[in-house]
């Protein structure tokens, strides 16, 4: 159909380069002409894109149902908050540390459950998300501040420049998104990426071909969690406080929707999905009380009209043939 033709057209190198510069130019110039409210909305699109990219590795590339991704986000945010407020470590320097801690936690908890299949894995990740949130609320050892959370996180500073305005945060988050997106695209085309997709399409066949399914699944989990940890650090720095009510099951569900709305395993798709999930309730602000009602309908409608997502991953086959009837 036309869409395929359009996509084949977009696959031409000059078109792609032009498209890339158009989007790049838009993203870079955006904060200079948009109001600070829209810049903040842009920041949240970036933040959710980062979270979505993380979940995309787990759900999109490997096909592991993870409905508890907010747990790793929370771990990253709390790592930043506690280390900064208690020990005075600079917030920006905690960016990699938050990612590492989140990744470490992911490795610890996912090792025993990684063998679970489909929906059983799904419920375990839900349970995991809830456990993390409840533990944060219950304030073990006075570490997490309970429902009050941790407040007073210092503003991050980059080479002496204090990151404080919406524009600063916008560029911070999109810089991280850009780096991660490029790295993930490279990974997709590598041996690891192909093995991941193999597992997603047919786990048993992959295993019988000598793919180390367990190790690769764990790697996906750890990598996805690390990206969520990055998002946690940026979120904590932006809000200058963390509290458990930011990391609910609903947030995990939204991330899940981001990946599927965008298209499983598609990096640009995930960013489009994040934009949809963040923008939709904002656009519908004038009907304040009903905006989530429309949001729910929009989720279902998108899946109805574009079941493969808004920007599905290109498969090699589609370059060759225009499939009839689709």
């Amino acid at each position, binding site marked *: 159909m036309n869409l395929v033709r359009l996509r084949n057209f977009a696959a031409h190198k000059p078109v792609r380069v032009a498209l890339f510069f158009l989007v790049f130019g838009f993203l870079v110039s955006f904060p200079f002409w948009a*109001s*600070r*409210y*829209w810049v*903040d*909305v842009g920041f*949240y699109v970036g933040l959710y894109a980062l979270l979505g990219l993380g979940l995309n590795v787990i759900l999109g590339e490997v096909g592991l149902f993870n409905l508890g991704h907010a747990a790793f986000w929370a771990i990253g945010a709390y790592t930043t908050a506690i280390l900064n407020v208690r020990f005075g470590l600079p917030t920006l320097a905690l960016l990699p540390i938050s990612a590492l801690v989140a990744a470490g936690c992911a490795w610890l908890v996912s090792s025993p459950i990684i063998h679970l299949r489909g929906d059983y894995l799904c419920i375990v990740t839900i349970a995991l998300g809830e456990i993390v949130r409840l533990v944060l*609320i*219950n304030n073990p050892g006075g570490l997490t501040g*309970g*429902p*009050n*959370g941790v*407040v007073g996180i210092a503003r991050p500073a980059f080479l002496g420049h204090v990151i*404080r305005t*919406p524009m600063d945060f916008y560029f911070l988050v999109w810089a991280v998104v850009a780096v991660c997106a490029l790295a993930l695209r490279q990974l997709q085309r590598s041996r690891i990426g192909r093995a991941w997709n193999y597992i997603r399409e047919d786990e048993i066949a992959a295993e019988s071909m000598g793919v180390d399914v367990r190790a690769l699944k764990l790697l996906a989990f750890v990598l996805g969690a690390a990206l969520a940890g990055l998002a946690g650090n940026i979120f904590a720095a*932006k*809000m*200058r*406080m963390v*509290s458990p*009510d*930011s990391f609910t099951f609903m947030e995990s569900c939204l991330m899940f929707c981001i990946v599927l709305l965008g298209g499983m395993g598609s990096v640009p798709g995930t960013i489009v999905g994040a934009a949809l999930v963040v923008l939709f309730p*904002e656009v519908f*602000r004038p009907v*304040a*009380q009903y*905006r*989530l009602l429309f949001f729910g309908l929009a989720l279902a409608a998108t899946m109805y009209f574009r079941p493969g997502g808004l920007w599905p991953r290109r498969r090699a086959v589609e370059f060759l043939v225009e499939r009839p009837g689709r």
Partner: protein
Amino acid sequence: MRAFICGLVLVAVSAWAQPILIGFQGPLTGPWAVEGDWALKSVQIAVEIVNARGGILGRPIQLVVEDDGGTPKGGTLAAQKLIAAGVKFVVGTYGSMVCMPSSELYEEEGVLHINYGCTRVDLSARGFGYYFRTSGRDDSQARFFVEYVIPLFGAKRIAVMHDNTAYALGVAEDVLRYLKPLLDAGEVQLVYYDAIMPGERDHTPALTALRDANPDIWYYTGYYPEWALLLRQGKDLGLDWKKIKAVGSNACPISETVKIAGLDAVVGAMITQEPLPAFLVEKYPLAKEFVAAYEAKFGPIHDSPWATYAADAIFTLAFAIEATKSLDPAVVARYLRSGKVVGEGITGPLSFSPEGDRLGVPYMLLICDEKGESARFDPAVHGHLVGL
């Protein structure tokens, strides 16, 4: 006739004058949508009252309403939206954790922010210049409970239960802090201290544990949906409010509680509460006007103190801007911080400490009487309800 012409002129002037934008930020969706709804309605009534009197500096107020969904993230977006709309004065919001990041944005942009439903103590300890609140703080309520309510009943065995939300934990911890000297002196005993989960419906297990602890007085800090369930299920378990004095905190309005729990379970239960509109009408003329206008437009008045404080935030702004003749938030903020009484609102004289806290928030001990109505606790009248 002259009054009529004056009125016409006033209307004409206010119709011509450029409106003053005042922002309202509140939870219109999400789990606290009820409070957001009440607060918005109250604020609308307050604006109508001010506008009917000729507005501020001869200019009408125009509300700009933004929903924050009751989440910190929603709070920052709503705040940015208000700031981008050019609002210089904001009334909002409900929930300390939502307030914290948004108030930071208002502070940075020099937007005067009056808070109506956040009682967390350290909100005003951040050295902000534009932050105010018309509500009280957790610690004043906790102190009221320890220093007034406990001696009133001569209670020795104390039970404290909270619901693991920021507000409830704050009050509960402050109760412990004020209780500590008494505990150390061995005058009272803390026999029960635990949390329940908000949103949970079955509290019988926790209540069974409470019953076994056998307290004289039981203070629940939390919100009314759980409080109503606790009272109902406690009654069904055979707990007796004559033996265990049940006291709720100020997010447990009695009328809502009775509606959910049934009158038989709530009779004799008490709450520590800021004065409600129903008690204020006798004392303050503005309260009377406000309640009449509210009931004419939206039906029976709510009994949430927070929504009333939201309306008072509008009046505070109106008084302060009128007094300073300035629309510069910095000037108005400096004036508010002076500690002067800026005017008499619905909840009494409005004055603020240099940190932005409301001064002189009174508390009352209310009891649910046999008719299911809130009454100010009077041992002579209600003693039999609590086994005195």
